[in-house]
């Protein structure tokens, strides 16, 4: 039964793990074939025309050739930018598998890759808006920029979530969309996909397949020359005519601008005139105002004079009126006197005459007198009238003047309003003028830009080269090749671990069989004595072994080759979620190898044990096995050493030589388990190294802010100032970071790597340390070579001084020379100086990210950091290294399980082997031990007697195990690590201590059990004859 179990486990493990590699490949091949994954893709910078596709289709050996489109766009989601690759739906080639929803039927409908639906929160029926990632108008490429998601898909071309590189955005394709081909507005296909006749029948990763496809590629390469030429001419013609149109447009624009300038000048002149007029008006107005003011003053004077004159006149009038009254009364008196005296006396008349004389000075009669007086009165009246008339005339004059002045005043205010109006008009005019000025300036600038563009376009046309056809096999799909490496990795593990396991199982079987035969010696002897032939007896044991082994092998192979690949492939499906097909065919080869090996091992062991026993005569078989001959050790030939060795140690040494088989098995057990333990702990160390070395010693920065591509210089400065002010940050550095595909002539793999260029090379070591992993020597970048990370150099198989090429989506290939290989654990990086970049690409790198180093001991909550800095216009995204670290810790944590499995396996192995062997040891030496007991050895002394051997074996075993473990660990670490990370190569001292301690602990536990077993040994056995 135990034989059955051990064989079962050994074969199951062997066949199972061994089958994983082919099963993975077969699964992938089936999936590829089912979805008609293109064998060859032809791409060209100038696109592929329908004629090209037709030409390829007509070629012998081409099953099918289809032109199709794919183009990368930007999609914005919650402040973050994603790169989306939009592909045209194709039929019968690169088929997609619909996962949910339905196929798109209208131009504004699309499918999104299944992985992203869950990840980024797109919804079925939801809408997705695309933006152009470069200066191309989105409308030139696709007819719609908003798509309704109708379903999700998976594609065999994109097995995992890493979907390749892009020339826009972050440089990494985040999502895939599939739309109807009609959506694309391009004149030419972006690529042509080709199925090769007969390729489906071959296993996709096999050499036969690769050769078959290679043959086709060579032939396509052959025709590509002609096709390239045709395409080149077409493009040049097209471009030239476009350029001419553009030039015409430019000229028109220039003319328009000139007209505008003229108009502007005219307007300017008019305004100048108006301004002059206003100024003149103002002057006139001013003098008018002065005149009016003077007028008012004169009027006031005149009024005063008039008043004075009136007063005078009134006085004069009163005097004249008094005179008049006097004269009138006088005359009345004279008249009355005369009338009284008419008849009267002369004297009286004389008196009157005298009186008149006194008045007039003349002697006149009354009548004359009367006339005289009348004359006076009349004069007076005339005088008064004259005065009155003069006064009235003066008033009239004054009134007239006043009216005149008022008129003038009104005119002035009228003038003022007019001027204000003009002023306003002038201002408006000026404003318009200013606008016009700006417009003109803009126009000029535009014109300049246009000129530059024209220049550029001209140059570009001149630069247009014969766009080479890139005829690619499936390796250009990153997943295609990484899937192969992953399955190879499993295959590698399958080469070592099951073998170890198998060897252990075989050894255990061997001892089991040997002991079984040994224990039944007497039975064998009796049978032989009775007269059974050797063959008959042997047949019994062989049959038993055969049955157990065969049953174990068959059931092990059946179960193992189904279950183990099932588990492992499902684990790998986490890495390759789009792998739709998993098949687990029985792998006859591995089953047969495992079963056959088990059978051969065990039958040989049985045969060996049996023949040894059967060779002896029945009589000796009846007796116990004669104790093995003890031998002197080489050591004893050196008496000076030997005599110093303690007595009981001598025994231990001799026992080593005596029981070689047991010794080696024990040694193997301890050595193996120590090695496994070391591998287990070493693996943990390797994982820990990643985190602590990557984020503690190599990447010193704590935060990364990516710069929004639309950010202006001012936005940048704003952000810089904020960073400068913030006391939490120690320093920051602008870097250029983008993703490219790297490949080298020494390797088949295409690797997606980051290119990192510091703005300031001298300050790079504040953020990233470039150093040798072993010597820790630090390097500084130079302008001639690039530095690459260690894992990348392994995958591309390049050394310092070698060259490799980088490209984006197979375009724009550049060759770089490796300067140094630097320590790094996560992702792959190419480091170079800005100067080198400029030399390669002819333009300065766009520094699109800032790495920030926090001040010592300060850690910032990632959410807080993001919230704080997303508010700046220049910020495109914020990444905290803590988050990254946690993410990796999670991913790598799953590997911890493997570690624990190893540790437990190792423990079980140690325990089983040691216990089993100690048991055998004790039962074989029962008599000897019993004797010692009778002789009066204390229990502890007796245990020590056995322990000495164990301790010695344990020490040697551990020493060998540590040695083997170091190698095994290196092997395991390099085989299990995935492409994007490099595990640490170092095993920490603590791990040595731990594995040694655990190995010792197991030994101690077993020895403890042995101690009790020894105690139970019955002394009476020593007295009996054996059996």
């Amino acid at each position, binding site marked *: 039964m135990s034989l059955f179990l051990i064989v079962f486990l050994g074969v199951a493990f062997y066949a199972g793990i061994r089958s994983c590699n082919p099963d993975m490949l077969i699964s992938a091949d089936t999936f590829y074939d089912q979805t008609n994954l293109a064998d060859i893709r032809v791409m060209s910078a100038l696109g592929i025309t329908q004629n090209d596709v037709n030409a390829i289709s007509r070629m012998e050996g081409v099953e099918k050739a289809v032109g199709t489109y794919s183009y990368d766009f930007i999609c914005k989601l919650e402040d973050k930018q994603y790169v989306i690759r939009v592909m045209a739906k194709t039929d019968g080639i690169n088929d997609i598998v619909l996962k949910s929803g339905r196929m798109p039927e209208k131009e504004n409908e699309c499918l999104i890759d299944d992985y992203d639906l869950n990840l980024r929160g797109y919804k079925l029926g939801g809408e997705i808006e695309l933006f152009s990632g470069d200066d191309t108008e989105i409308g030139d490429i696709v007819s719609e920029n908003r798509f309704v998601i109708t379903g999700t898909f998976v594609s065999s071309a994109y097995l995992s979530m890493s979907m390749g590189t892009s020339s826009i955005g972050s440089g990494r394709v985040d999502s895939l969309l599939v739309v109807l081909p009609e959506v694309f507005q391009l004149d030419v296909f972006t690529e042509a996909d080709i199925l090769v006749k007969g390729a489906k029948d071959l296993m996709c990763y096999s050499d036969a397949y690769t050769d078959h496809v290679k043959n086709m590629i060579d032939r396509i390469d052959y025709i590509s020359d002609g096709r390239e030429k045709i395409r080149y001419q077409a493009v040049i013609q097209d471009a030239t005519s476009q350029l001419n149109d553009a030039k015409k447009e430019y000229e028109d624009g220039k003319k328009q601008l000139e007209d505008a300038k003229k108009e502007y000048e005219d307007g300017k002149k008019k305004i100048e005139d108006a301004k002059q007029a206003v100024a003149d008006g103002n002057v006139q107005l001013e003098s008018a105002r002065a005149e009016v003011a003077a007028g008012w003053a004169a009027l006031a004077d005149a009024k005063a004079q008039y008043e004075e004159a009136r007063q005078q006149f009134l006085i004069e009038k009163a005097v004249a009126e008094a005179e008049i009254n006097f004269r009138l009364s006088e005359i009345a008196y004279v008249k009355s006197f005369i009338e009284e005296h008419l008849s009267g006396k002369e004297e009286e008349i004389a008196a009157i005459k005298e009186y008149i004389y006194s008045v007039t000075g003349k002697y006149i009669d009354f009548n004359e007198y009367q006339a005289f007086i009348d004359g006076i009165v009349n004069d007076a009246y005339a005088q008064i009238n004259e005065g009155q008339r003069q006064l009235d005339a003066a008033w009239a004059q004054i009134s007239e003047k006043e009216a005149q002045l008022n008129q003038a005043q009104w005119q002035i205010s009228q003038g003022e309003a007019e001027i204000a109006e003009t002023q306003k008009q002038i201002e408006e005019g000026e404003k318009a003028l200013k606008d016009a000025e700006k417009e003109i300036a803009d126009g000029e600038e535009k014109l300049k830009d246009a000129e530059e563009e024209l220049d550029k376009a001209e140059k570009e046309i001149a630069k247009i080269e014969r766009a080479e056809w890139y005829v690619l096999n499936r390796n250009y799909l990153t997943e295609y090749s990484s899937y192969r490496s992953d399955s190879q990795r499993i295959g590698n593990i399958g080469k070592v671990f099951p073998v170890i396991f198998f060897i252990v199982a075989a050894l255990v079987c061997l001892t089991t069989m040997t002991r079984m035969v040994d224990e039944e010696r007497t039975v064998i002897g009796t049978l032989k004595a009775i007269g059974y032939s050797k063959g008959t007896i042997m047949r019994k044991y062989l049959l038993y072994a055969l049955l157990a082994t065969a049953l174990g092998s068959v059931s092990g192979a059946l179960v193992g080759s189904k279950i183990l690949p099932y588990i492992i492939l499902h684990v790998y499906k986490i890495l390759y979620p789009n792998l739709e097909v998993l098949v687990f065919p029985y792998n006859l080869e591995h089953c047969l190898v495992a079963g056959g090996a088990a059978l051969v091992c065990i039958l040989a062991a049985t045969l060996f044990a049996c023949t040894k026993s059967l060779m002896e005569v029945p009589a000796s078989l009846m007796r116990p096995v004669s104790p093995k001959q003890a031998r002197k050790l080489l050591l004893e030939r050196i008496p000076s050493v030997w005599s110093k060795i303690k007595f009981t140690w*001598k025994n231990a040494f001799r026992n080593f030589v005596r029981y070689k088989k047991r010794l080696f098995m024990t040694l193997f057990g301890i050595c193996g388990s120590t090695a496994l333990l070391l591998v287990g702990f070493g693996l943990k160390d390797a994982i820990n190294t990643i985190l602590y070395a990557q984020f503690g010693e190599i990447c010193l920065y704590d935060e990364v802010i990516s710069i929004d591509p639309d950010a202006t210089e001012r936005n940048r400065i704003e952000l810089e100032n904020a960073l400068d002010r913030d006391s939490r940050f120690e320093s920051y550095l602008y870097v250029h970071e983008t993703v490219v595909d790297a490949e080298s002539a020494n390797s088949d793999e295409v690797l997606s790597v980051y290119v990192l260029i510091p703005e300031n090379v001298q300050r790079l070591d504040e953020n990233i340390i470039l150093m040798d992993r072993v010597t820790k020597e630090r390097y500084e970048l130079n302008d001639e070579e690039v530095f690459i990370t260690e894992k990348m150099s392994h995958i591309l198989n390049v050394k310092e001084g070698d060259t490799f090429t980088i490209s984006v989506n197979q375009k724009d290939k550049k060759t770089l020379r490796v300067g140094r290989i630097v320590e790094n654990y996560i992702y792959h990086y190419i480091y170079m100086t800005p100067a080198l970049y400029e030399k390669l690409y002819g333009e300065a790198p766009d520094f699109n990210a800032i790495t920030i180093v926090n001040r010592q001991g300060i850690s910032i909550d990632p959410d807080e950091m993001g919230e704080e800095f997303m508010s700046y216009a220049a910020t495109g995204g914020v990444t905290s290294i803590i988050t990254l670290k946690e993410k990796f810790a999670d991913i790598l944590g799953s590997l911890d399980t493997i570690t624990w499995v190893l540790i437990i396996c190792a423990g079980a192995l140690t325990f089983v082997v040691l216990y089993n062997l100690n048991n055998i040891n004790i039962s074989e030496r029962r*008599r000897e031990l*019993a004797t*010692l007991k*009778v*002789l009066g*050895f204390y*229990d502890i002394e007796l245990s020590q007697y056995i322990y000495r051997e164990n301790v010695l074996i344990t020490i040697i075993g551990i020493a060998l195990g540590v040695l083997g473990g170091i190698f095994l660990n290196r092997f395991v670490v390099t085989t299990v690590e995935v492409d994007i990370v490099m595990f640490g190569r170092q095993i920490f001292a603590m791990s040595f201590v731990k594995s040694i301690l655990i190995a010792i602990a197991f030994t101690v536990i077993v020895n403890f059990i042995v101690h009790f077993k020894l105690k139970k040994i019955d002394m*009476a056995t020593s007295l009996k004859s054996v059996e």
Partner: protein
Amino acid sequence: MSYIELKEVVKEYGAAGEAKLRALDGINFEIEKGEFVVIVGPSGAGKTTVLNMLGGMDTITSGEIWVDGADISKYTSKQLTKYRRFDVGFVFQFYNLVPNFTALENVELANQISKNPLNAKDLMNEVGLSERLDNFPAQLSGGEQQRVSIARALAKNPKLMLCDEPTGALDYNTGKTILKLLQDMCREKGMTVIVITHNQAIAPMADRVINIKNGKVEKTAQNPSPVSIDQIEW
């Protein structure tokens, strides 16, 4: 009180509840210091059981065993180990030498655990094996091995020598030399030697003969004038 005294010693085998096998059924005898004692009896009489009890290799069910003034039947297993270690020397029927050690080393093994051991080489000389010190047991004849075994028992300088069928696996002559050696040792060193045998013929050489049958002492006889082994024939 005698040097060794067994009083009503009973030994039963078998776990509680099961049918018990009574190996010793009330053994009584006494042995004086320096005596050469032979315990005889047919197979299955309980001789070996007596030896086991006397040698402190097993515990008794009831009764008392007095050795040199101490009741070893009351001893703990640790005390028993000490008793075996310092007071008793064993000679086994199948010699039970450690196959890994040379003849000399086998003696030294006992030497090492004893309080006042005798010189191993001298002892080897005494048993007549000075030529074969560096041979492994497998390279020695049965008689030679038994002599090594005796030397090993003596090396501890014990109070008591227990010999379980020391000649059982040996031929007549070799057996005789071994018995002679034992007798000589007893006489020369004044050691108490107890020999168990089914061979009645050698009884005359003993100072005291104890006959055991069916787990009981059938007869004890003191022999005032033991004869030398050379004079005994069987």
